[in-house]
C-alpha cells in the first residue's frame, strides 16, 4: 500500500466504498461460481475474483457519466461501475429482469445507465467501441472519459494498434487499461506476447504506466490522475495492471495443473490478495476495526444471497421477446415517398 500511505483519513468514505465494492465483486463471483457448480446457471462464465482492485481502483475514479467497456471477464467491471446484484444475477440466469432482459448473459452484460457499454465475448472486441465513445465525448464536448478494460491476451488483437493510433492522432480522452493476469486461457503471457506492452503503446506516442493491480489505492491514485488529465485533453493513456485471476479461465476450468501450479495460486492469494491487504491496511491505519470489516463482509454476502434467491425465482422473458430488439424502432422519418 506504499503509494497510499501518505493519504489522509478524510478519504474514509472513499476507502470504505472501495473496500465494499471489492467485497461485492468477490461475493458476486462466489455466488456465480456456486450457481455454476450447482448447475443452476446456463452456460459458462469467467470469474473476476483476484482482480478486484483493478476494476474498483479505476471505476472509483470515474463519474457515472464516464464510460467503460468491459470483457468476457466482466462482472467485476459491472459491479464496480455501479450495477446492482439483482439485475446482474437475473442477467446471468437469463431472466427478464436482467440488465439485458436475459438476452445478453454474462458475456454481454451492459448497464448503460451507469456508463457500462457492455461486456464483450470477442477478445479485444470493445477496443474500437471505447475509442469511439471517447470520440463522442470529444465531439459532443461532454468531458466524459472512457476506460477500455482488456486482458493481456487481447493485446494480440490488431484492432488495438489501429485504435491507439487514431486515439493518439486525435487526442481522445480514453484510457486503455490492460489487466495483465499472466494468462490468456491456458497459456502464459510470455508465450504469446513479444517485447513489452507499455512500449507498444508508447510507440504511438501514448504515455504509459505500469502499476500493481492488487493495490487498490495505487490503482485509484493513478486512475484519478489520468482521468483528470484526460479531461484536460491530455489523453489517451495506457496502463498495464499486474494482477491475477484466482479461478480457472472459466468456471469449468478446474483441473489446471498443466498450465499453472497450485503453489503459484496459493502464493498470490496469501500475499497479494487485494481485499485482505486493503482490509489490513484499513485496520492498521485505524480507519476500521476488524469487526467492522467483518460486518460489512457479512452484509454484502447476505445481499448477494438474497439477490441470487430473487433471480432464481424471477421469470424468464416471454417467448414473444425472441424477435424483439433485433432492430430499434426509429422515430418517424418524415417519409415523403
Amino acid at each position, binding site marked *: 500500500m506504499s503509494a497510499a500511505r501518505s493519504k489522509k483519513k478524510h478519504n474514509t468514505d472513499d476507502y470504505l466504498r472501495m473496500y465494499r465494492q471489492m467485497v461485492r465483486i468477490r461475493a458476486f463471483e462466489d455466488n456465480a461460481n456456486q450457481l455454476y457448480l450447482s448447475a443452476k446457471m446456463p452456460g459458462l462464465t469467467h470469474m473476476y475474483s483476484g482482480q478486484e482492485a483493478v476494476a474498483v481502483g479505476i471505476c472509483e475514479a470515474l463519474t457515472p457519466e464516464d464510460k467503460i467497456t468491459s470483457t468476457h471477464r466482466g462482472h467485476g467491471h459491472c459491479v464496480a461501475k455501479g450495477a446492482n446484484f439483482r439485475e446482474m444475477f437475473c442477467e446471468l440466469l437469463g431472466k427478464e429482469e436482467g440488465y439485458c432482459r436475459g438476452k445478453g448473459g454474462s458475456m454481454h452484460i451492459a448497464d448503460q445507465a451507469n456508463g457500462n*457499454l457492455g461486456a464483450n465475448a470477442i477478445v479485444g472486441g470493445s477496443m474500437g*467501441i471505447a475509442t469511439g465513445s471517447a470520440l463522442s465525448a470529444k465531439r459532443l464536448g461532454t468531458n466524459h472519459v472512457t476506460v477500455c478494460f482488456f486482458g493481456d491476451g487481447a493485446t494480440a488483437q490488431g484492432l488495438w494498434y489501429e485504435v491507439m493510433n487514431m486515439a493518439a492522432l486525435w487526442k481522445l480522452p480514453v484510457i486503455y487499461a490492460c489487466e495483465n493476469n499472466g494468462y490468456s486461457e491456458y497459456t502464459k503471457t510470455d508465450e504469446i506476447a513479444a517485447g513489452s506492452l507499455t512500449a507498444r503503446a508508447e510507440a504511438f506516442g501514448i504515455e504509459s504506466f505500469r502499476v500493481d493491480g492488487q493495490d487498490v489505492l495505487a490503482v485509484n491514485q493513478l486512475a484519478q490522475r489520468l482521468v483528470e488529465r484526460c479531461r484536460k485533453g491530455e489523453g489517451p493513456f495506457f496502463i498495464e495492471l499486474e494482477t491475477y485471476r484466482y479461478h480457472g479461465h472459466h468456471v469449468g476450468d478446474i483441473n489446471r495443473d498443466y498450465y499453472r501450479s497450485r503453489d503459484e495460486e496459493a502464493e498470490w492469494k496469501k500475499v497479494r490478495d487485494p481485499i485482505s491487504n486493503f482490509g489490513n491496511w484499513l485496520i492498521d491505519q485505524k480507519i476500521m476495526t476488524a469487526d467492522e470489516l467483518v460486518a460489512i463482509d457479512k452484509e454484502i454476502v447476505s445481499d448477494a444471497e438474497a439477490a441470487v434467491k430473487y433471480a432464481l425465482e424471477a421469470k424468464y422473458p416471454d417467448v414473444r421477446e425472441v424477435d424483439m430488439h433485433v432492430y430499434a424502432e426509429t422515430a418517424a*422519418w418524415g417519409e415523403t*415517398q
Partner: protein
Amino acid sequence: MTREITLSKAVNEAIAEEMRRDPAIVLLGEDVAEAGTPFKVLSGLVEEFGTDRVIDTPISEPGFMGIAVGAAMTGLRPIVDLMFGDFLYLVMDQLCNQAAKTHYMSGGKLKVPLVLRTNMGATRRSAAQHSQSLQALVAHIPGLKVAMPSSAYEAKGLLKTAIRDDNPVVIFEDKLMYNDKAPVPEEEYLIPFGKAHIKREGRDVTLVATSSMVQVAEQAAETLALEGISAEIVDPRTIVPLDEETILRSVRKTSRAIVIDEGHQSYGVTAEIAARISEKAFYHLDAPVIRMGAMDVPVPFSPALEDITVPTAAGVVENARRICRGELVHAA
C-alpha cells in the same frame, strides 16, 4: 422542381442536407476530407463542415468501423465511408459481431445508429479484390439493414433514410454509376426502407433487379417489348427489410420471374428472393424462377473475361424468352 444530377452528387447532397440538420452526424473514412474520396463523391463537405465532422482516418478499416460503433452507442451518428465494398471482409467483426447485435444483446438498451456507405460492381478492370458485390454477406446478418440504390434518385432518398435510422445500415453504391444522371427533386424526400418500387409495369414476366441490374433489366425490357413480351421490373431498393409483398404481387400477376443481382450467384441474393418467390407464389408460377447472379468465380482482371462474369441485358432477354415461350429452362 426536379433536375438531373449524378448519383455521386445525390449522395453528396444527402449527406450535406443531413449534416446540416443534425450536428451529431460525423463522417469517417480514408481520404474523405480534402480528397473527397478517390471517387470525389464527398467533395466540398469538409469545406462546409470542417475536419471535426469530416474525419480522415488512417488505413484502419476494422479500427474506424469499431470507433464508429462506439461513437454511435454514445450520441454521435457516424457515416462510415468504406472505399471499396471488398474491404467489408475487414470490418465484418465490428459490423456483424458488434454493431448488428448490440441492440439485441443489450435487451434494447443500447442503439447503434450508423451508416456504412460502400460500393459494389465489376467491369471496372479492377480485378478480384476491388470488384466484389458482397451484399449477400451482410444481408444474412440479423440486426443490419441493407440498401441498394438503383439510381441517383434512390441513392439520395435511401441514404437520407439510412442516416435517420436508429440501426446500422449498409448501403451499397454501384461504383460504375457514380456519373450516371437521373432526375432528383430539389425538395427534400426520403425513401422508406422495405418498400419496393415498380420501375416498369408489365404482364408477362417479373424482373426483380437490384442496384445497377435495374438498368440491365430496363434494357432487356425494351428489347422484350419489341418482341411482344411485357416485362415488369421490381426494384426492392432494400434487401433487408425485403418487400416480399410487392414482389409476390407482381409474380402472382405475371406468373414468371427472373431475379438479377450482381453478387456471386451461389448462396447470394438471388437465392433468397427466388426461394421466397418459389415458396410463396408456388401456385402462381408457370415456369421456374430463373436466377442471374455473377459467375461463381473471383472477378478476373482481363476485359476479355470480366465482362462475361456479370448478368447482361442479352442474358435477361434470352432467359425471359425461354420462360415466356414455355421452353423448359432445365430438363426438369
